[in-house]
């Protein structure tokens, strides 16, 4: 499929939409390692990047792909990698590096069933907690989800914008159903797409401190090669970027890295809600499952059951406040997900005991069907 940003309607897989969205967002570097069900992202990037002067590389493994992605980004080039379950595990150490060194990049994980090699060709949502806590050490992370090819395109653009704005790795979680379903995507005109790019330092190289304390906590990292000869490390460092053993400096810097995301939660968190106004039960669903959940809400309403839906499009940071607000009004949350209740844990934290949280889980590689959700809703109302 050719690169086309003329506002046309095209048929494509979620994985292709991801690649197209990345290029529209300004991504000009991709490093990957093949793995089902994500390989079409790498394949599309290998086809489309050279024509626009971008760079593709198939690395020897996912550790390498993550490292190359970070290295490329430090030269100012928007960079992405894509993988699935086992590969996502391998990327974790360097995802932590990107958090610590504050290097913007996008990591796509098209979730398949696990643990281990699991179900290479079947969907799951088993990596949502790994996206939050997969790398070692205290940190914050931004993770987005998408439920369709169209939304994948849009969320990929958003992932780059958030990465560049907050100077942090951003994870985009798709699942096998979203990645492999071919459907209609309206590609907006390039001029209609909002693009955010990282800031450049205003001060001279002599006065430059890459990791200095700022009001927002977000650092300004100069591109390599522009005269700001600073140091980047995964070791605890001070505002200069050099390693430090000073306990005060260590604490200050790590707190800043966490704060730049946590203090801006409200600008990052996003969700859709439908029919929640009078709802007695809320279906909390994300990714491909939210499509079944929407049908389930319609089916419930036809039968006179007051169901509503809350669909986060950003899962990390989690929308605890929204969940708490709805918990004041409804009795029950039903959380259908293709894992053993990973996001239901967060919903439980969010309701603060004010509503019941009921899980509906599937881990056999089969999608959750609307009728199953309706059945669960009927059990609880």
């Amino acid at each position, binding site marked *: 499929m050719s690169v086309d940003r003329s506002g046309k309607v095209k048929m494509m897989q979620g994985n292709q939409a991801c690649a197209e969205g990345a290029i529209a967002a300004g991504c000009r570097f991709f490093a990957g390692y093949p793995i089902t069900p994500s390989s079409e992202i790498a394949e599309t990037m290998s086809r489309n990047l050279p024509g626009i002067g971008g760079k593709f590389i198939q690395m020897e493994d996912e550790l390498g792909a993550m490292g190359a992605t970070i290295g490329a980004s430090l030269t100012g080039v928007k960079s992405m990698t894509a993988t699935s379950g086992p590969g996502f595990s391998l990327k974790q150490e360097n995802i932590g*590096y990107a958090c610590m060194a504050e290097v913007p990049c996008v990591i796509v994980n098209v979730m398949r069933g696990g643990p281990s090699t699991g179900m290479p060709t079947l969907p799951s949502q088993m990596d949502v907690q790994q996206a939050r806590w997969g790398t070692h050490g205290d940190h914050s992370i931004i993770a987005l989800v998408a439920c369709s090819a169209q939304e994948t395109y849009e969320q990929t653009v958003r992932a780059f914008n958030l990465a560049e704005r907050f100077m942090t790795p951003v994870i985009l979680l798709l699942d096998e159903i979203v990645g492999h379903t071919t459907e209609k995507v309206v590609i907006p005109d390039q001029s209609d797409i909002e693009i955010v790019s990282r800031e450049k330092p205003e001060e001279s190289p002599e006065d430059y401190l890459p990791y200095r304390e700022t009001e927002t906590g977000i650092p300004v990292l100069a591109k*390599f090669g522009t005269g700001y000869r600073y140091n980047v490390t995964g070791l605890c460092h001070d505002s200069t970027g*050099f390693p430090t053993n000073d306990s005060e400096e260590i604490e200050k810097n790590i707190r800043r890295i966490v704060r730049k995301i946590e203090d801006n939660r409200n600008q990052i968190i996003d969700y859709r809600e439908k029919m929640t106004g009078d709802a007695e039960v809320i279906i909390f669903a994300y990714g491909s499952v939210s499509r079944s959940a929407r049908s389930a809400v319609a089916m419930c309403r036809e039968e006179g059951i007051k169901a509503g839906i809350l669909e986060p499009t950003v899962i990390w940071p989690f929308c605890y406040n929204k969940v708490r607000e709805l918990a004041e009004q409804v009795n029950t949350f039903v959380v259908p997900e293709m894992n053993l209740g990973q996001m239901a844990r967060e919903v439980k934290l969010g309701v603060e005991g004010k509503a019941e949280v009921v899980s509906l889980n599937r881990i056999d590689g089969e999608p959750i069907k609307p009728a199953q959700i309706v059945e669960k809703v009927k059990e609880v109302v």
Partner: protein
Amino acid sequence: MFNYLKFIRTRNFPHIWCPGCGDGIILKALIRAIDGLDISRDEAVMVSGIGCSSRTPGYVDINTLHTTHGRALPFATGVKHASPDLNVIVVTGDGDATAIGGNHYIHAARRNINLTVLLYNNYIYGMTGGQCSPTTPRGDRASTAPYGNIEPPFNTAGLAISAGASFVARADVYNVKRCEKMIRQALEKDGFSLVEILTPCPTAYGRRNRMANPVKLMEWLRDNTVPVQKWEKLSPEEREGKVRVGVLADTEKPEFTAEYRKLIERVQGE
């Protein structure tokens, strides 16, 4: 006298290396080599992994990137591929490059991407206190080989040659002139250029192997390294226990970023 200060971040001194460590000698040889070549500091990037050796970039006033253990080469590959105009130097240890980073090592060499790689080989894991490395000689002691190492070592330079590197040399810190010359040649070469540099680690290696005195390790380097020209004349018996130093491979091969540039031109021309 040569003025090192223009390349050194003195604010980070004193350095972390032990007295008698060879890593500082390599740092000085590298600076002299860079200076001799008129490389722009703003357009040079030094990438390292984790280890005593990998702390080198912190002291050099260019763009520096201290990465994760074993991953210097992938990070460097990203830097170079995304921005080929940057001059990319990689500093790595024997464990960093050939154990945890072994896969990246052979693949970066195979790709023949234009990186200059300085592999500090001290035969041991220095930073973590003297555990066995893939280059620890058979019979030597390490903190994880208290009864003597039973594994055969890698020929690290040979590995890079067979994987496809276009320039491979071996040097040692006893002969600093040769060391500097090898680094300069590697910097000048287009393609994956490796200089394996034998360097003493008195603290983690020497102490366990009857060479706690740094002078002993330097003498060992002096007495056991053989320049390539001389090596050719030695019998197999005479070569026993000796290490060949000098340029081991220097060939012309397609370089990765140049090939990618051609690919872009081809695709854009269609």
